[in-house]
C-alpha cells in the first residue's frame, strides 16, 4: 500500500476518535481490553504522525500533506488540513504523549475507566485538529469542542474537594476568549469577503488580505485575549494553577504539555500573520507581560508548598519565555520559541508524571511530607533529576537550547528584556532545585516514606521516551531546528510583507483622500473665480 497517498493528517486526527466510538460499545467490565484498545489506537496515532514526519519535506516552507474537502460551500467553509515546520513538531509531541498518558493512567484511574478513556481519546482528536486545521471555522470547532473532554477530565476524575470549581473556571475563562475570537473571525471573514468578493474561511487566503489598521487592532485584541488566556499569559493565568492542581495526573500532563501550546501556536499561526501591524505595534506590551509572567511565575513558584502547584506556576514562567521569543520577530527568537514549546511539553509533562507517581504512592503533594526519597526510590530519583535539570535549562538538555535561542533573539532587539528574562532562569534554578532538595535529599524523616516502592517497569516505559527526547534536543537540536527553519523564515517574511502592504494601502488611502481634498479645493477655487 502506498502510504503517501493516504490522508495522513485525517488519520492523525481521527484515529483516536474512532477508538473512542469503539469503546462506547465495549462492556464496562472489560477494563483491560478497553485500556488496550485505547493504547493501540494512540500508538497507531503516533505511527501516523511519525509517517507524517517521514513524508514531510524539511526544505520547504509550504503547507504540506494538505487535504481539502468542501464542508459548507455556501459559507465558504472547508475541511482543510496541512502542516508546516511550525506545526510538525507540535503534532509529533501530541502523538508522543498519547500512548504515554494512557500508560500512565493504567493503574492510576480505577473509577469510570471507560468514560475516562473516551474523554482522553476525544481530547487527542481535538488537540490534533487544532494543530493541523487550515480553515478558521474548522480550527474554531476543534478549539472549542476540546473543552468538553478536558472539562470532564478535571470535573469527574479530579481532586474531589475543588474539582468542579477548577473545571468550570477553566471552561469559562477559555470560552470568554474564544467567543470574542469567533466574533473577530466573523468580522475578518466579512471584511475580506466584501473586499475580494470571495467569502471564505480559508486561512491561507485570508493571510493575503490586508486588514485595515483600525480593524486589525480590534481583531488582534480579540485573538490575543483568546490565546493569552490559553497560554496563559499574566494576568490571565489564574485558572491554570487551579486546573493543574485539581486535575488527575494525566489531565495535568495533557494540559501542560499540549493544551497550553495551543495558545502560543495560535499566536504564531493566526494572530500574528493575520494582523501583523497590530501585533508588531503591541510588541512592547506583550513582551512586558511575558516578562512579568516569567519573573512573577518564578517567584510564586518559589513559595509554593504543593509540588503540583509549584510545577504549575513554573509553566507560567516558561511560557513567558515562549512569548518573549516569538515577539522578538527574528529567526533565533521564533525558532527558540517553537522549540521551547516542545521542551516545555516534554519536561513539564514529565514533571507532572513524576508528581503523579509519588502522589499515587503517598496521596499527598505537600513538599514537607517528603524528604530523603532518593534513598528509597533511586531509579525515580534519576528520572526526577533529569527532568528537573531539563526544566531549569541545564546545558546538554533540551531546556537550555530553547531558552538560549530565545534570550539571544530577544537580546538583538531589546537587550534589557533579555537581561531581565535571564534572571528568570536563575529563579527557575532556585525553586526547582530547592524543591528537589527538600523532596529527594536529606534524612528520611517521615516514617510513612520508608516503604515506598521504586518505579515499576510500566512507569519506566512511560518516562523513558521523554528522557530520550530531552537529551536528543539538548545534544543535537538541529534535527528539530532544520525542518522549522524554512517555515520560520517564511513566517517572518510574510509578516514583513503584509505589514508593508497594509501600510501602503493606508498611505494610498490617505494620498487619495488628500488628492480628493486638493481637487475639491481647486474646484472650489475655480468656482469662486
Amino acid at each position, binding site marked *: 500500500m502506498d502510504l503517501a497517498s493516504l490522508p495522513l493528517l485525517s488519520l492523525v486526527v481521527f484515529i483516536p476518535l474512532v477508538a473512542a466510538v469503539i469503546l462506547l460499545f465495549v462492556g464496562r467490565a472489560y477494563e483491560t481490553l478497553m485500556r488496550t484498545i485505547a493504547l493501540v489506537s494512540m500508538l497507531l496515532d503516533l505511527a501516523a504522525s511519525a509517517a507524517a514526519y517521514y513524508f514531510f519535506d524539511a526544505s520547504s516552507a509550504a503547507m504540506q500533506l494538505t487535504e481539502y474537502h468542501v*464542508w*459548507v*460551500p*455556501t*459559507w465558504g467553509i472547508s475541511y482543510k488540513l496541512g502542516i508546516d515546520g511550525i506545526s510538525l513538531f507540535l503534532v509529533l509531541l501530541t502523538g508522543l504523549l498519547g500512548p504515554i498518558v494512557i500508560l500512565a493512567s493504567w493503574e492510576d484511574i480505577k473509577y*469510570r475507566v471507560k468514560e475516562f478513556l473516551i474523554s482522553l481519546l476525544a481530547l487527542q482528536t481535538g488537540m490534533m485538529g487544532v494543530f493541523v486545521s487550515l480553515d478558521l471555522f474548522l480550527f*474554531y*470547532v476543534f478549539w*472549542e*469542542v476540546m*473543552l*468538553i473532554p478536558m*472539562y*470532564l477530565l478535571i*470535573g*469527574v476524575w479530579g481532586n474531589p474537594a475543588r474539582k*468542579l470549581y477548577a*473545571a*468550570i473556571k477553566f*471552561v*469559562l475563562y477559555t*470560552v*470568554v476568549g474564544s*467567543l*470574542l475570537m*469567533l*466574533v473577530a473571525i*466573523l*468580522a475578518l471573514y*466579512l471584511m475580506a469577503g466584501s473586499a475580494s468578493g470571495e467569502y471564505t474561511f480559508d486561512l491561507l487566503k485570508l493571510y493575503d488580505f490586508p486588514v485595515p489598521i483600525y480593524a486589525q487592532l480590534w481583531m488582534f485584541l480579540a485573538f490575543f485575549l483568546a490565546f493569552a488566556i490559553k497560554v496563559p499569559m499574566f494576568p490571565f493565568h489564574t485558572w491554570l494553577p487551579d486546573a493543574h492542581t485539581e486535575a488527575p495526573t494525566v489531565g495535568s500532563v495533557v494540559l501542560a504539555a499540549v493544551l497550553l501550546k495551543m495558545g502560543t501556536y495560535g499566536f504564531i499561526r493566526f494572530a500574528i500573520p493575520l494582523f501583523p501591524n497590530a501585533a508588531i505595534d503591541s510588541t512592547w506590551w506583550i513582551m512586558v507581560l511575558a516578562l512579568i509572567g516569567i519573573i512573577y511565575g518564578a517567584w510564586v513558584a518559589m513559595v509554593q508548598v504543593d509540588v503540583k502547584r509549584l510545577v504549575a506556576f513554573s509553566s507560567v514562567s516558561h511560557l513567558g519565555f515562549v512569548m518573549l521569543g516569538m515577539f522578538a520577530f527574528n529567526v533565533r527568537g521564533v525558532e527558540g520559541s517553537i522549540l521551547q514549546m516542545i521542551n516545555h511539553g516534554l519536561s513539564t509533562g514529565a514533571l507532572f508524571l513524576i508528581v503523579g507517581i509519588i502522589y499515587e504512592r503517598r496521596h499527598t503533594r505537600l513538599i514537607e511530607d517528603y524528604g530523603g526519597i532518593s534513598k528509597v526510590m533511586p531509579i525515580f530519583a534519576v528520572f526526577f533529576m533529569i527532568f528537573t535539570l531539563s526544566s531549569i535549562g541545564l546545558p546538554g538538555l533540551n531546556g537550555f537550547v530553547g531558552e538560549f535561542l530565545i534570550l539571544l533573539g530577544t537580546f538583538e532587539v531589546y537587550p534589557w528584556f533579555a537581561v531581565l528574562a535571564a534572571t528568570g532562569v536563575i529563579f527557575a534554578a532556585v525553586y526547582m532545585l530547592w524543591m528537589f532538595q527538600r523532596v529527594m535529599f536529606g534524612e528520611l524523616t517521615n516514617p510513612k516514606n520508608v516503604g515506598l516502592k521504586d518505579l515499576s517497569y510500566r512507569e519506566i516505559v512511560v518516562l523513558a521516551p521523554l528522557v530520550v527526547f530531552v537529551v536528543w534536543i539538548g545534544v543535537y537540536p538541529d534535527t528539530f531546528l532544520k525542518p522549522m527553519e524554512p517555515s520560520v523564515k517564511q513566517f517572518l517574511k510574510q509578516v514583513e510583507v503584509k505589514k508593508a502592504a497594509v501600510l501602503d494601502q493606508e498611505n494610498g488611502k490617505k494620498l487619495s483622500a488628500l488628492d480628493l481634498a486638493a481637487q475639491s479645493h481647486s474646484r472650489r477655487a475655480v468656482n469662486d473665480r
Partner: protein
Amino acid sequence: MTFIELYALLPLICLAATPVAALAAIAVSRDHAVVTLVTLIGLGLSFFGLCAVRPLVPMQITPLVVMDGYTLFFVGLILITTAAVALLSYQYLERREGHPEEYYPLLLFAALGACVVAASNHFASFFVGLETLGVSLYALIAYQRAAPRGIEAGIKYLILAATADAILLFGMALIYAKSGSLEFSETATSLAGDYSGLEMAGLALLVSGIAFKLSLVPFHMWTPDVYEGAPAPITGFISTVSKGAVFALLLRYFGEVPAQDFSSVAFCFSAIALASMLAGNLLALLQDNVKRMLAYSSIAHLGYLLVAFLAQRELAVTAVAYYFVAYFLSILGAFGVVGILSGSEGEAEDIKDYQGLIWRRPWIGAVFVTMLLSLAGIPLTAGFVGKFYVLWAGVDSSLWMLVLVLIGTSVIGLFYYLRLIAAMFGSPEAPREELRGRRAGFEAAAAVLGVLTILVIWLGVYPSPLIELIRRSAALSGF
C-alpha cells in the same frame, strides 16, 4: 376563493380536520393509543399537504392568509414539533391519573392556531390564530386538574395572556385608525414611514403584546411559573411552537413595515434584546429547578434571536430560521428528557434529581448533555451553528453592543448549563423515585429523543442542507 386557493390551504385544512377526527374517535371509544395514532396521521397528512402545495407558492389566499416559502417552512417546523410533543406526551400521560385523550385535540388546535399565525399577513387572521393557540394552551397548561401548580400556572397564563391580548388589540386598533386597513402591507403603505403619535403608540402596544408571547423582558414575568407548572411536554410546546409562530409573525410584520429602520424603534428592540439576554441568563443562574432554569434560558434565547432580527433583512430571516430549528430541537429534547424522567407524582425538576444521571441512565443522560451543549452553543451541535449565524448577522450589521452582550451572557449561560451537566456527571445518589420500569410509550419517547439528538448533531456537523432549504424558502417569499 377559487379551487386552487382552497387546494393551497390543504395543510391547514388537514390540520383543522384532525382534532375533529380525534374527538370523533374519543366519542366512539376512549383509547389513548387510537387518539395518538389519529393525531399522528393527521399531522402526517398535513405535512404531506405541505409538500403537495409547494409548487404553488407564493400565493395570497384571501386577504387573510399567505402561503409562501416562509409560511411552509414554519408550518412544517410546527407540524414536526407537534408530532414530537405528541409522542413525548404519550408516556407522560400514561402514568398519570385522569383521561389523557382530550389532550390531543387541544394540542392540535394549538398547532393550528400557531400555523395560522405563521401564515397570516392580516391583523384579523393573526388575532384569530393567536387566540386559538392561546385558549388551547390555557387548557393544556392546566391539564392535570389534580396538580395545584398546574391550575395556578393555567390561571396565571390566562389572566396575563388576556391582558396582553387586549393590549395587542388596542395596538391594532390604533394602527387601523391611522391607516384604515388591517392588512400588513397596506398599513405599511399608508404609514409610509411617517411615524408619529398614534401609530407610534399603536406600534408600541403591538410590540408589547408580541413581546409578552415571546416572553421578552420586561414582559417575561409569567414564564418561569408557567414553565414550572405545565406538564413537561407542554412546556416544550410553549417554548417552541408558540414562540416560533409569533416570532415568524414578528419577522413578517416588520418585513412589510420596516419600522425597525427608525432609530427609536430599533432602540426599543435593542433595549428589549439587551434586557432579555441579561435578565434571562442572570436569573437562570439562581435557579435550582431545572424547568425554571430552562424558562429563564429561553428568555435569553429569544433575546439572541432579537439580535439577528435587528440585523440586515435577508440575513436576519435565514439566521432566525436556522436558530429556531436548532432551538426547537434542543429545547424539545431537553423537556423530553424532563418528561421521561418524571414520575407519576411530580416531575424531575430539581437539580438533585439529575445527580449522577449519566451513570444511572447513560443514554438519556447523554441526550440531555447533548441538548444542553446545543443550547449553550458548543460546536458540533446545531445550537453552535445557530449562534454562529446570529453572531454573523450581528457582526454584518455592526451591532457591536448587542454582539458583545450576547457573548458575555452566553458565557454566563454556559455556567448554568455546566452546573447541570456537572450534577449529571457527579456521583449518583438515590433519586426520589427511580423510574426504571418500562411503561407504555417509553419506546416512542426514546425514539423521538434519539432522532432529536441525531438531528442536533447532524445539523451541527453538516448544516448545508438546512441552510439551502431556508434560503430557498426565503427566496420563495420575496424577502
